[in-house]
């Protein structure tokens, strides 16, 4: 490690220890790192979006490529700033309405396709007399039962109640698996941070 790398890694190690200090209790070191990350994250995203979106979608099209129709969304964007004034705040609704209108118009068919049709297509597959076929059958049954559980227009009693109970068991198995994966993902991150600290201290003081 060069001296510059050692200094940068020293800063990263110090901030890592600041955050870990929260395990003891809330303290000024943790607060320092917490406030620093808030400011740095905002500054990072602001400049990244300025270069990748504002420059590429506003400045270059209007001033370099002469695409004057990009002035319209720019005016709409500026209308968002009218929220600072109580009298003119209603103008910002026009920009919001456009944003919402395009957003919902684009999202509606995509939700229908990705979240409903494609999921159903992957669930209902031709049945085979094999282990795979049994799993496919179980998949259809579990998905159907899960959907029954979310159907609140009928009381969950009798056969319907039994099926919705299978649905909640399926959901719990799914949540359990997701929980297990999340916990182990976080443990992997923890191991990674500890390895980083170990390597830094080895580089600093030698093995």
């Amino acid at each position, binding site marked *: 490690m060069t001296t510059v790398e050692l200094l940068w890694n020293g800063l990263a190690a110090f901030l890592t220890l600041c955050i870990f200090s929260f395990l003891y209790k809330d303290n000024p070191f943790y607060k320092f790192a917490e406030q*620093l990350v808030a400011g740095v994250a905002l500054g990072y995203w602001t400049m*990244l979006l300025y270069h990748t979106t504002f420059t590429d979608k506003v400045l270059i099209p209007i001033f370099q490529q002469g695409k004057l129709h990009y002035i319209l969304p720019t005016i709409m964007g500026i209308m968002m700033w009218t929220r600072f004034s109580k009298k003119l705040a209603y103008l910002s609704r026009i920009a919001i309405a456009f944003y919402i209108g395009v957003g919902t118009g684009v999202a509606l068919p995509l939700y229908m396709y990705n979240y409903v049709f494609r999921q159903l297509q992957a669930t209902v597959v031709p049945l085979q007399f094999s282990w795979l076929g049994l799993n496919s059958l179980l998949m259809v049954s579990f998905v159907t039962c*899960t959907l029954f559980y979310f159907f609140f227009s009928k009381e969950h009693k009798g056969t319907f109640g039994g099926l919705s109970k299978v649905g909640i068991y399926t959901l719990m198995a799914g949540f359990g698996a997701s929980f297990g994966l999340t916990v182990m993902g976080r443990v992997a991150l923890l191991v990674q941070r500890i390895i980083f600290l170990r390597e830094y201290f080895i580089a600093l003081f030698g093995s």
Partner: protein
Amino acid sequence: MRRQIPLYIVLVCGIVFVIQFFIPSHESEFIFEYGQDWVMVIGILALPLGIWSYLRKTWLTAVKKPKERFFAGVSLFGFAIMMLTGLKRESLMAGSLYMELFEYVLIPIQATIFSLLAFYIASAAYRAFRARSVIATMLLGTAFIVMLRLIPLGPISDVNQALVGWILSVPNMAAKRGLLIGIGLGAIATCIKIILGIERTYLGRD
């Protein structure tokens, strides 16, 4: 009129963008891309609102709470340093001060905050997962089996590996599909309500 015009804009934009999805052509592709650009431009120009809100809140904290003044200053310093180091487009290249700050300040802190959750998620799980009912036992059992498969030593047995494979590909996938279909149907209903002007909370109050 102040509330009517935005509702008409939502109606027209919503219908146009739903229709363009079902008519694949150069024209509809142009409308889609142009609309997306509009949304991005409006979004980026709304960013100053958020920055103003952050600066105002941090400044007021510094003025009203002397004990918090140092930390508010740290936050403002972090923001200012990133703005200054990122002024030029070249600063997005690897090796610039802006990217070094990203790599050695932002990434370590965020990774450590997420790794802290390993401790808290375990204590939360202890409270939530006590096997009091069949449902809780099911959750606990599945989580335990999946976690056993992912220990750093690798799978403890072939049975465990096969069982986790089955859990992930059948009940876990079925639960996710059920949820996704539910979310999809809910989102479609909400989109239709927004386009038709039934749902209008985004307009706020006068």
